[in-house]
């Protein structure tokens, strides 16, 4: 007997951690926190999760999963369908091509990489939304959101790495 069913179930459960944490991050990001002006600049937790897992376990969080989560988020959030999906796929692509710079280097590199991704994601969203509504949207919120995301990144990243270490290695 090679591997028992329990062992395989256990492994499948562990392997689903990147996907399920990303979905959980998306849902938590939609929590009504009732802080003044918070929801306009709420940090994109989903983007952080996708960024983290695309660097460390791209074998478990596949690009099509990022796409699917983006579509799901658009449907739930009422944002233009396809916008988040586009952002996540592009972010994933960028991370995958630059992965060797982030992997193994210090945390500062991971942070710097996320800063680039967050700014890029904000820019893509802004352009896409402005094109779709044929209306130049004020970029203030996007900029604030990206900045807040960059500042807060270490906290979610620490949570992901805890999960990563305890369940996947």
């Amino acid at each position, binding site marked *: 007997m090679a591997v028992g069913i329990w062992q395989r179930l256990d492994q499948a459960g562990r392997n689903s951690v990147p996907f399920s944490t990303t979905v959980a991050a998306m*849902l*938590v*990001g*939609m*929590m*009504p*926190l*009732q*802080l*003044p*002006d*918070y*929801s*306009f*600049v*709420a940090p*994109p937790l989903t983007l952080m999760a996708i960024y983290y897992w695309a660097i460390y376990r791209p074998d478990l969080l596949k*690009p*099509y999963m990022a*796409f699917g989560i*983006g*579509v*799901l988020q*658009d*449907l*739930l*959030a*009422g*944002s*233009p*369908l*396809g*916008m988040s*999906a*586009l952002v996540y*796929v*592009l972010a*994933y*692509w960028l991370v*995958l091509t630059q992965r060797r710079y982030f992997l193994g280097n210090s945390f500062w590199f991971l942070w710097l990489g996320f800063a680039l991704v967050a700014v890029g994601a*904000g820019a893509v*969203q*802004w352009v*896409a*939304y402005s094109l*779709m*509504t044929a*209306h130049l*949207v*004020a970029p203030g*919120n*996007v900029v*604030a*959101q990206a900045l807040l995301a960059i500042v807060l990144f270490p906290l979610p990243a620490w949570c992901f790495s805890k999960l990563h270490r305890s369940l996947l290695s």
Partner: protein
Amino acid sequence: MRALLQRFSFLLMVLAAIGLMMMTRVDPVFIDAARARVTDAFAPILGFIARPAGAVASVLESGRQLTALYAENQRLREDNERLRQWQQTALRLEAENNSLRGLLAYKPDPAASYITARVIADPGGAFVRTLVVMAGQRDGVRRGQAAMAGQGVIGRVVQVGEWSSRILLVTDLNARIPVVLETTRQRAMLSGDNSDQPRLMYIPRGVEPTVGERVFTSGHGGLFPAGLPVGIVAATHDGETRVTPIVDLSRIEYVQLVDFGIPGGLAAEAAQPGAMQ
């Protein structure tokens, strides 16, 4: 070869995403149905997550209140005194109004009924101002109903699922509400632009809204009943007038959806959520 395949698959997904964006324009009804289904499916989870969030928010709130307890008490006492006098006036006016209506055989607007629902998600993001609430078709929610919180209008229902629905806030880029100014009775359109303060549009030249003046729904377009308070004129300069919503939109826990008996106004259909994004 593998790299090429990978690049191709990414390109395919990017195109698919762009295709989805196009599709919102082509078939908004289908997309809307899909949104409603998905929101329904996730509503229980969102509702579950929202509970601790509400608890955290109320702890923060009570901490904030403790510091201002004394001053708040003082203010409330004075408020109460003043409001008692107003109550007397209101009662007198109501009686007078009733008797005058009786004289005129006035036909009143149909009575409104309210559905109260808990806010379960505030998906936000930098581009949309919506709330998801835990009440839907089976609770009597219909698209186009006005959403109120406390004393003022906060938006309208744009998507209805079986047991969840979505509210487009007055600050959203796509929100348009026909309003009337309190003192001049001048009509205008309250138009959101994703900022905290929506703009008043289509005010004729020469009409200068005064700061502090209240803004009410006008009832035109049949979407909202007339006379619901929406906001207060905050500032005017360069012909641009901004209105502060009367309700603090970031602190809504429960909303009231108002069904005032006018079946699906014209504007309800014009406001397809394809344009909702």
